[in-house]
């Protein structure tokens, strides 16, 4: 009921009287005497009255997160604020394609201006991992870190200090991880790491065939292929430079594209003429069978093999190796009595024998053909075999060193080289652990030696001098989210007697940030200077310009590390008198010494980008070695392509590290007896809506790509699970609850959870967001000690 006008006026005057009565009774100085804290609204310095007319400035920049695309971002800036983003609009040509942003690149305004950003330095007040923090000043934070770092170094020695693998600055020249290592190096040394979470197996295994990881060609050469095989490669979602663009261009000219993947990936849908589904961890069974077809039908390139390879058959084996160890011997089953026929393989990998036969024939007879390996299949228990198997297929068909072919393996190539800020020399030499084994080094570092992949131990020392005690996790989420087995990792981190200091710098409150003792607010790429390059095959560098001032109390890592260096008395040695911008200019000048076409700082600022036209710059890996073998040896021990590696043979572990690539039945693979308890294989994939774990908190991207698990119709039917339902996914390591997408775009018997979702355990430890690493294992691969995160067995039930 509406009140009468009279009532309302009456009420109003009553309220006003009460209001005045309150006002005259109040005596609290903070209320009557003005604002107690510092006034923030002040008289305008340039009292111009109203605002000046809009004066838009457009600065080009790029993110330096670990993204394969490294697109060009044009920030439209008004009055110190980014008001809009646009992307590359230059002329779009085959040699110099536009670097168009994908959905991730379009979400950056929400990244920079997200209200959830970390704003102030924080100190942990509850138990570690509990997520309770209190605001402190930068001075207090630096003071605490310096004190603790000194204490721990005195007590445990410099090898107890570790900068954890972090890729938030992976495209950068001033990465925070490197810069803290510089501080360590200036104050006694540190435990370093080798490998990466992305590519340990391929980076380690590829050189056993070719002596190098630089096995990629420029992408324009794909148009000269007759057949492109993308094996576990999904460039449409990972945005591998502009690989997707060039594969499309090749396809337009009539090149056939085959995708081999347990999932009908977006690449398979958008670019493939044929998709071949395969069970995870069984790629080498198919490769072995392809080799069987090529060998038994004599489709191999005999001249090429005789001239450039060792270990193909018994005739060209290195000395000191007994009979029956060559590739041909293994494939034909000379020793084990098992011929690796397509019929043998199809039972293992589920690819029909005639499909294998057909592909082997097409690949061997349609020269040149390009077999590009993705990095997914090497991130499994015996991922090294996948890498070596691909290189051997390329070698025996003579597809190495020729235009339109592809050497396979890691596929690195870089036309544009930037120069990183030097981090000095570690006084402890090159003492490193495989980056995947850092949790081991916290618990049992002093027991870890060569067999755990530790490198650089000084003479006479068998194991690491100390466990890890101080961890700096700067710009990364591998402190828990991206590392394997979240529950186990959390338990290790929660124990404050193991790692005694954990410093994290971050932009958001990530799962890793929750485990910080000191949590520092990092600025974003929009607020600092840097230079970004893309994943291989790299054809451009972008100046990451500072577009706006630091938000809140955030700082770039370089800024606060300089404060820390000052506190430790090494500021001069650390900065060498240079600011971030000075280092960018220095880096440009250094790069110009090696590449005179590299633009000057002023040119770079104007163009925003240095992109090399492919017109006259086609690069083909090993072209020299093939054209002129006399003067150009491969960088292997034999100087040839090593189908058989004597170095691997000498490791004397033929079951797990064979000297020729072989199918090794994987633990938690389809042949593991554990399938009785956990019958489904689980893999991850790099989802278009995230860059690893970055952007998981972006709601536009969640709409475009919700966090769901893929499951085949028949697996779902058996379990009475319907599309969109929440399911429990579990094994002995943990449990995840998340929605399911029922789709035949995944092979039966396998489920897939896109990697990178933020681990969100409830009070029972059950992850509610869908982080695959709740279920992955910390057991490393045998040779590289790399992560096996696509090797898992699970069961799924309705939640």
């Amino acid at each position, binding site marked *: 009921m509406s009140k009468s006008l009279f009532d309302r006026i009456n009420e109003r005057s009553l*309220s*006003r009287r*009460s*209001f*005045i*009565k*309150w*006002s*005259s*009774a*109040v*005596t*609290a*100085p*903070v*209320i*009557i005497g*003005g*604002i*107690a*804290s510092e*006034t*923030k*609204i*002040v*008289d*305008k*310095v340039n*009292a*111009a*009255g*109203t*605002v000046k007319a809009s004066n838009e400035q457009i600065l080009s920049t790029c993110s330096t997160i670990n993204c394969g695309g490294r697109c060009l971002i044009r920030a439209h800036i*008004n*009055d110190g*604020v980014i*008001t809009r983003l646009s992307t590359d609009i230059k002329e779009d040509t085959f040699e110099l394609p536009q670097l168009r942003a994908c959905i991730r690149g379009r979400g950056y*305004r*929400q990244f920079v*201006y*997200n*209200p*959830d*950003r970390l*704003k*102030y330095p*924080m100190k942990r007040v509850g138990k570690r991992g509990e*997520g309770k*923090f*209190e*605001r402190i000043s930068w001075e207090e934070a630096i003071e605490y870190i310096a004190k603790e770092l000194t204490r721990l170094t005195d007590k445990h020695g410099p090898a107890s200090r570790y900068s954890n693998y972090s890729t938030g600055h992976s495209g950068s020249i001033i990465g925070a991880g490197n810069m803290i290592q510089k501080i360590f190096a200036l104050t006694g040394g540190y435990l370093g790491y080798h490998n990466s979470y992305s590519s340990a197996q391929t980076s380690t295994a590829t050189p056993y065939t070719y002596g190098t990881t630089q096995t990629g060609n420029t992408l324009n050469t794909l148009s000269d292929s007759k057949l492109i095989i993308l094996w576990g490669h999904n460039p449409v979602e990972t945005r591998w430079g502009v690989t997707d663009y060039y594969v499309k261009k090749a396809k337009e000219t009539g090149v056939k594209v085959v995708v081999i993947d347990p999932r009908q990936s977006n690449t398979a849908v958008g670019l493939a003429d044929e998709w071949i589904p395969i069970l995870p961890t069984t790629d080498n069974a198919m490769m072995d069978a392809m080799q069987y077809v090529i060998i038994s039908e004599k489709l191999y390139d005999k001249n090429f093999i005789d001239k450039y390879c060792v270990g193909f058959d018994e005739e060209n084996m290195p000395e000191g190796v007994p009979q029956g160890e060559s590739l041909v011997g293994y494939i034909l089953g000379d020793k084990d009595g098992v011929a690796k026929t397509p019929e043998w393989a199809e039972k293992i990998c589920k690819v029909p024998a005639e499909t294998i036969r057909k592909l082997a024939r097409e690949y061997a007879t349609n020269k040149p053909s390009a077999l590009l390996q993705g990095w997914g299949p090497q991130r499994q228990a015996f991922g090294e075999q996948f890498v070596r198997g691909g290189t051997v297929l390329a070698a025996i068909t003579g597809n190495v060193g020729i235009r339109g072919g592809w050497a396979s393996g890691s596929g690195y190539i870089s036309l544009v080289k930037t120069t990183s800020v030097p981090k000095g020399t570690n006084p402890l030499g090159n003492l490193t652990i495989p980056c995947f084994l850092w949790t081991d080094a916290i618990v049992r570092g002093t027991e870890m030696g060569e067999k755990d992949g530790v490198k650089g131990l000084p003479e006479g020392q068998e194991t690491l001098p100390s466990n890890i005690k101080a961890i700096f996790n700067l710009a990364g989420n591998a402190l828990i989210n991206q590392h394997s087995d979240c529950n186990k990792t959390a338990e290790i981190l929660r124990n404050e007697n193991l790692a005694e200091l954990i410093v994290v710098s971050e932009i958001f*409150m990530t799962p890793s940030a929750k485990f910080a003792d000191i*949590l520092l607010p990092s600025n974003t790429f929009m607020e600092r200077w840097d230079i970004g390059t893309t994943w291989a095959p790299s054809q451009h560098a972008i100046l990451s310009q500072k577009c*706006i*001032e*630091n938000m*809140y*109390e955030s700082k770039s890592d370089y800024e606060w590390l300089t404060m820390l260096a000052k506190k430790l008395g090494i500021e001069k040695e650390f900065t060498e008198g240079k600011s971030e911008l000075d280092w960018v200019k220095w880096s440009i000048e250094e790069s110009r010494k090696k590449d005179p076409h590299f633009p000057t700082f002023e040119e770079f600022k104007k163009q925003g980008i240095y992109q090399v036209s492919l017109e006259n710059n086609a690069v083909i890996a090993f072209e020299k070695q093939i054209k002129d073998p006399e003067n150009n040896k491969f960088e292997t021990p034999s100087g040839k392509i090593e189908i058989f590696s004597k170095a691997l043979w000498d490791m004397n572990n033929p079951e797990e590290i064979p000297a020729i690539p072989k199918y090794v039945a994987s633990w938690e693979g389809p042949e593991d007896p554990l399938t009785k308890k956990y019958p489904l294989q689980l893999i991850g994939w790099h989802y278009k809506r995230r860059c690893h774990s970055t952007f998981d*908190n972006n709601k*536009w991207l969640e709409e475009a790509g919700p966090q769901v698990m893929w499951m085949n119709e028949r697996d779902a039917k058996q379990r009475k699970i319907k599309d969109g339902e929440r399911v429990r996914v579990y094994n002995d390591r943990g449990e995840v609850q998340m929605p399911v997408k029922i789709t035949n775009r995944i092979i039966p018997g396998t489920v897939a959870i896109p990697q990178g979702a933020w681990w969100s355990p409830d009070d029972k430890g059950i992850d509610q967001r869908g982080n695959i690493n709740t279920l992955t294992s910390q057991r490393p691969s045998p040779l590289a000690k790399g992560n096996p995160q696509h090797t898992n067995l699970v069961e799924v039930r309705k939640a």
Partner: protein
Amino acid sequence: MEIQNQLFTTEQNQLLSARKKLYQLLHQLLSEPISFERFIEIKEQGYIDGLIELDNSVQILYDFFYCQDIDESIQKAREDFFRLFIGPDSLPAPPWESVYRSKERALFDFPTFEVRNLYNQFGLEVRKRENLHDEADDHIVFEIEFMIALIEKTQKEEERDVIIKLLEGQKMLLSEHLSKWVPQFSLDIRNNASTSLFIGIGYLLDFFTKFDCELVDDLFVSINNC
């Protein structure tokens, strides 16, 4: 001791003064976590019970100051403050206008520019530290501070035309900004706060910005007509 501006009636002067004080109370409680000293000062000299007559919901705020265990209540209120407005976790009640009015729910959207423009029209701006864009202009504390500045100017101003401008500024801030986002913001505070201090502030802020629209309207009408 109240400022008497000859262009206003006694009651109007009293209202201006009361408005300023109430905004100062809100400013104080929203700009920093409450300390023991502040708690005692507001409890003993803030006459919160007097505000209950204005709106019943203030009872909740009053309860906070008359709680059993003062130390524990203050500690909880401090935690609430950090959780609601500071972080490090995702903020349940982000204190910026842009978050509520932009489609992206991000900062530095059009409201930031609009209030910046408004501040500038009255010769004011958000203090900037060197190399630091520490805070967006449409933070609740800045909008309140701007209101206080305009009220103070109004109290002292002798020119009628200027007063009209100053009141227009206040109307503008209320109608084009505060009333467009404070209802949702204070609802977020109420729904997510776990202490009576902030649940109470959630009610008071919402109630008072509506009440103040009437007060400013009336002041505006009367100064225009005299």
